């Protein structure tokens, strides 16, 4: 039996009330969406929180809609709804695929896209009970000073494990965060009340597994905006895991190819997750693939070259359960699968 530590639960019905509840409750406050990541982490005492602000009652945070050219997904939309949405399947196919392979059916029904975006990092030395971790003297991510992944490591390398992030990178999503202006911000000239801050998804992360995001815990994700993509947009997400369900990814690869009317690649992007604390973009992807036409010998040669080059920048660490060498060897395999699924 794993009990939750005691906390006070707040149940606001508007974003403004949620921000006020979080601001009034102090720093040991967490927003809780579906709870499928936060609750196990609280039960394992990986996180300390005196107050939880449940977002379950805020209807305005749910739903999928078009706003001008942007596809806007409310962060409290369930992963099941994201995966089955025709709008998402049409506009951002890789995101729909990724949402459909997160964990198991129950997790996707209660888990939300916003929760997946804000998922904590994972490591085989941290996602364990308090007793288990205490026997090792804890680790860099929480309560300890030593890294069990990299000997002498000074920075936590727990892995970014949110399936949805890799596709959101490839489509250039913007995340909209809202927070209440603190007294310090007001003293520095900011207006009082709710502040809105759009963050490009590839500016969200930092290379520190202890907390890998550049937004504060008092900032609430209120919108996930995906810009209009060209008619020839193709996307795919490939997930490596031991079982066909429930598991977190051992490796995740999202690929994007935009083709022009003649079938020539005009935009290419490949992003890997679960190798480090932040997603890793394969920077050689556009150099190799743009200008190629799928189905030609030139494309085949470029793809083989890309898969080879990618293994130099995408390096699996022994940070999550599973064979590290196998994960490393699957990097070119999944990149090839992801690109081929696009063409």
């Amino acid at each position, binding site marked *: *039996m794993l009990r*939750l530590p005691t906390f006070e*639960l707040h149940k606001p019905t508007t974003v403004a009330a949620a921000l006020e509840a979080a601001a009034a409750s102090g720093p040991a406050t967490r927003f809780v969406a579906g*709870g*499928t990541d936060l609750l196990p982490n609280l039960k394992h005492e990986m996180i300390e929180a005196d107050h939880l602000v449940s977002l379950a009652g805020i209807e305005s945070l749910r739903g999928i809609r078009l706003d001008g050219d942007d596809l806007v997904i409310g962060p409290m939309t369930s992963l099941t709804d994201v995966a089955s949405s025709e709008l998402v399947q049409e506009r951002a196919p890789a995101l729909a695929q990724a949402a459909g392979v997160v964990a198991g*059916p129950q997790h996707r029904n209660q888990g939300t896209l916003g929760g997946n975006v804000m998922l904590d990092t994972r490591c085989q030395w941290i996602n364990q009970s308090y007793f288990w971790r205490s026997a090792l003297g804890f680790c860099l991510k929480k309560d300890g000073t030593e890294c069990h992944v990299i000997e002498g490591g000074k920075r936590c390398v727990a892995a970014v494990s949110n399936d949805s992030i890799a596709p959101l990178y490839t489509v250039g999503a913007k995340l909209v965060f809202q927070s209440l202006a603190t007294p310090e911000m007001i003293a520095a000239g900011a207006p009082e009340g709710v502040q809105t801050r759009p963050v490009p998804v590839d500016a969200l992360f930092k290379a520190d597994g202890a907390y890998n995001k550049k937004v504060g815990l008092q900032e609430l994700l209120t919108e996930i905006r995906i810009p209009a993509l060209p008619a020839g947009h193709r996307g795919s997400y490939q997930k490596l895991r031991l079982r066909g*369900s*429930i598991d977190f990814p051992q490796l995740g690869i999202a690929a994007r190819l935009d083709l022009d009317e003649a079938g020539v690649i005009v935009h290419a992007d490949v992003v890997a997750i679960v190798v480090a604390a932040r997603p890793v973009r394969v920077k050689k992807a556009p150099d190799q693939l743009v200008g190629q036409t799928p189905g030609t010998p030139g494309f085949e040669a470029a793809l083989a070259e890309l898969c080879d080059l990618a293994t130099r920048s995408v390096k699996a660490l022994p940070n999550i359960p599973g064979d590290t060498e196998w994960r490393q060897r699957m990097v070119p395999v999944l990149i090839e699968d992801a690109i081929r699924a696009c063409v």
Partner: protein
Amino acid sequence: MGNLNLKINGDHHPVDAPDHWTLLEVLRYRLDLTGSKQGCDKGDCGACTVLVDGKPELACLLLAGASEGREITTIEGLMPAHRAAGGTGADPVQDAFDRAGALQCGFCQPGMMLSTRALLNEEERPSRERIREALSGNLCRCTGYTQIIQAVELAIHETCGEPVEHPAWAPDQAPWGDAVSTVPGRKGTGSSDTTQGEQA
């Protein structure tokens, strides 16, 4: 009056529970609804599966306080709902699991049956692949998956009033006997007796 008002199996339950209690803890330790099992308690096993607004969710990862205003169905609610809709016996899913021997220790069974009920409410005739996908969040440590899938297919065939395919290990007979439950709008759910008759 309790600090929470939960709607469980069609009834309103006022309960007193601390903020940090999960729905599973309230079901088991406040309401004595012990059909929902406490397995891993961290979302890995599916033994605590309940239906929330008709969809399978994990009661061990759902805060009781965040479950207000939602329709919660536990395994205890399946038979009363089936009978309220005019059926007899247990829910056809429960009947099929019982007769197909789709259990050993039985710990995963409430979750398995609720995931199945949600699937059959959504689709009348799901494919085997779809059944496997829908049950993929429910682990059976006794590895009884073969009979579990058979039980779901038995429930589908009987609910639709179709002849039941015999399992490969008993090609000449329907080893699970006749359906005990009936479904409203259908004269008899079981067709295994007809099939047996034809074979005889």
